[in-house]
């Protein structure tokens, strides 16, 4: 294992083969030499890195419950301010939160909103695997339209999730924070560049990072980078950032692939290729095009 990469999160953790979460954590935390304190929502990252009596964390780390990671970070931020005032610490560490999409789009959204509004000094990283994967693949507010999940399964009377996923970037952006960006674990340089900017931001910053899940998107464990790349190459997951309200698309796709290219490599969309669900694929393509044109307008 690369010693530099494992400086803050060691090897020996228990994430699934082919999981990109450790890569997200390592590249985000690797983007700074300054001290960090990690707060984690309940989820895949937490259960696979802290199995007592072991820990994979080489930096200070706290987990408490599912929906409160941002509020926990707020407390750490306030504590550091107080301890600076009383001279008990000489330097503040950057507080970095990691939460999945369940812990961010859904149960932790209120706590995130409150912490953003109050302007705490922290970076919130949502690793978005588009569902409640730690509990076995249920639908979240981040699950895309048409996906087959355990709680929105496909069947004769269902094509899977019947709603569009939330636009979390715009929800976060509505808090007028200085820096937020959408990235993808398959694009490590993009992720590193954005993590650096986010960590150097004073006040709240936010990263939404796509994390293809081998288990519940259902693709071979060797393919998470390839599947992640298809998400961006089809414009399903454009890479962009918002700095002081200014939008930049970081990876303008010249010849976008049709959405089928992304869908067909995943078991969760397999049912959409049945004749009766052809329209769902067309709907997804239309939504991808619509979202991209909105984004392009904002970035002009």
């Amino acid at each position: 294992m690369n010693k530099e990469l494992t400086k803050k999160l060691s090897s020996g953790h228990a994430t699934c083969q082919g999981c990109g979460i450790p890569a997200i954590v390592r590249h985000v935390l690797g983007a700074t030499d300054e001290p960090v304190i990690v707060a984690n929502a309940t989820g895949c990252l937490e259960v696979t890195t802290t199995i007592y009596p072991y820990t994979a964390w080489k930096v200070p780390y706290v987990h408490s419950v599912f929906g409160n990671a941002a509020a926990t970070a707020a407390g750490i931020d306030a504590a550091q301010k107080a301890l600076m005032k009383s001279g008990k610490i000489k330097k503040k560490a950057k507080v970095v939160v990691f939460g999945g999409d369940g812990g961010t789009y859904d149960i932790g959204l209120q706590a995130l909103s409150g912490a953003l509004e109050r302007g705490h000094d922290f970076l919130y990283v949502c690793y978005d695997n588009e569902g409640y994967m730690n509990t076995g693949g249920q639908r979240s507010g981040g699950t895309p339209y048409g996906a087959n999940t355990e709680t929105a399964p496909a069947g004769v009377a269902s094509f899977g999730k019947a709603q569009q996923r939330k636009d979390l970037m715009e929800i976060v952006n509505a808090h007028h924070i200085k820096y937020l960006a959408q990235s993808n674990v398959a694009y490590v340089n993009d992720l590193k560049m954005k993590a650096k900017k986010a960590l150097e931001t004073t006040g709240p910053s936010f990263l939404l990072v796509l994390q293809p899940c081998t288990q519940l998107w259902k693709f071979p464990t060797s393919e998470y980078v390839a599947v992640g790349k298809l998400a961006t190459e089809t414009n399903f997951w454009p890479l962009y950032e918002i700095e002081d309200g200014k939008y930049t698309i970081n990876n303008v796709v010249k010849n976008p692939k049709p959405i089928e290219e992304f869908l067909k490599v995943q078991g969760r969309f397999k049912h959409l290729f049945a004749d009766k669900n052809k329209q769902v694929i067309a709907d997804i393509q239309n939504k991808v095009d619509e979202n991209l044109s909105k984004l392009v307008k904002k970035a002009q």
Partner: protein
Amino acid sequence: MKKIPNTKYQIPNTKRVLALNGGYAMAEALRQIHPDVMAVYPITPQTTIIETYAKFKADGLVDTEIIQVESEHSAMSATIGACSAGARAVTASSSQGLLHMAETLPVVSGLGLPIVMCVSSRALSAPLNIHGEHGDVMAIRDLGWVQIFGEQAQDAYDNTIIALRLAEMAGVPVMPIMDGFHTSHTTERVEVLGDEIIQSFVGQFKPENALVDQKNPITIGTLALQNTYFDFKIDQEKAFLKVKTLYKKICAEYGKISGRKHSLFEEYKTKDADFVIVMMGATVGTAKDAVDKLRADGKKVGLLKINLFRPFPYKEVGAALAHTKSIAVLDRAMAFGSFPPLYQDIVTSMQSAGSRKHDVASYVYGIGGRDTMQSHIVSVFRDLEEGEINNKIKYLT
């Protein structure tokens, strides 16, 4: 010693006698403790605490980092973050708010975080009711938090200081509890000690581990599986049971600086009493007056007021009541399909007292802020005297 910033206000460093309500009294104790971090979210009848504290900060009397969170769930979560980081952190709550944060309460006790939460106890919805009773604190009574009940505004002040010292000595979270409105909003005579005396009493917060210690990075809040979780919980219980001794020790020390006696429970004219009422909280004052009146008529009645409710002093209570003929337990909480909590604890106490079976009657009073009058208390003693004791819960409506 943490310095309180200079302000236009000159607070004498000596004992003062003030007219304070319970909410203000708790805030005043917190001002003297001067925590590093306080997370605040409004709920009636707790708001007097956080509003008073916010004004202290606005007036430059404290420089605590106040986090104005967006919910009670986040109030306790932020307090967990702050305390884990190495700060002395407090919050306050009541009723729905307390239950909203209920998910995080066993996290605090499981992690052994010495957090103090001031509670102004109140009824639970539905139907909505903002008035005093113990339904909220009873609902979360077995989550590993120390619960100290108080009768008056003076107790609200004293118990907050005792709670902080106890939390940090024992490594457990503590909630000093006052009855909503009857104590939180009633102005009474309160003796406040000097700031330096309190600061010296509570001392500095020196956590064993802290997130801010970058040289010794620690993982807080791990996953424990079938092979370790059970043992963690047994250890937690063992540590929790040590609270009783520490509480007595701290009360004795606090007695030396305040001249006021605090103990596991207060025995009011019980030594030779045949009939005793057991209760806790604000209504005890009314009950004591009723005891005095009946005593004047030659009745051998008394009252036992529980102060430390969790962990419960079973053996001590059993011994203190062993000589009685019969006992009435007055709970200020409903317990649907069950006997109410204090009643169950007293029955257990009397079993541990040994030799003979005691008659213990169950009464529920003051739900949703309903007034409890001396006549109610007198009627309870009359029941005991006349042997009107059965296995039914009676409601003092």
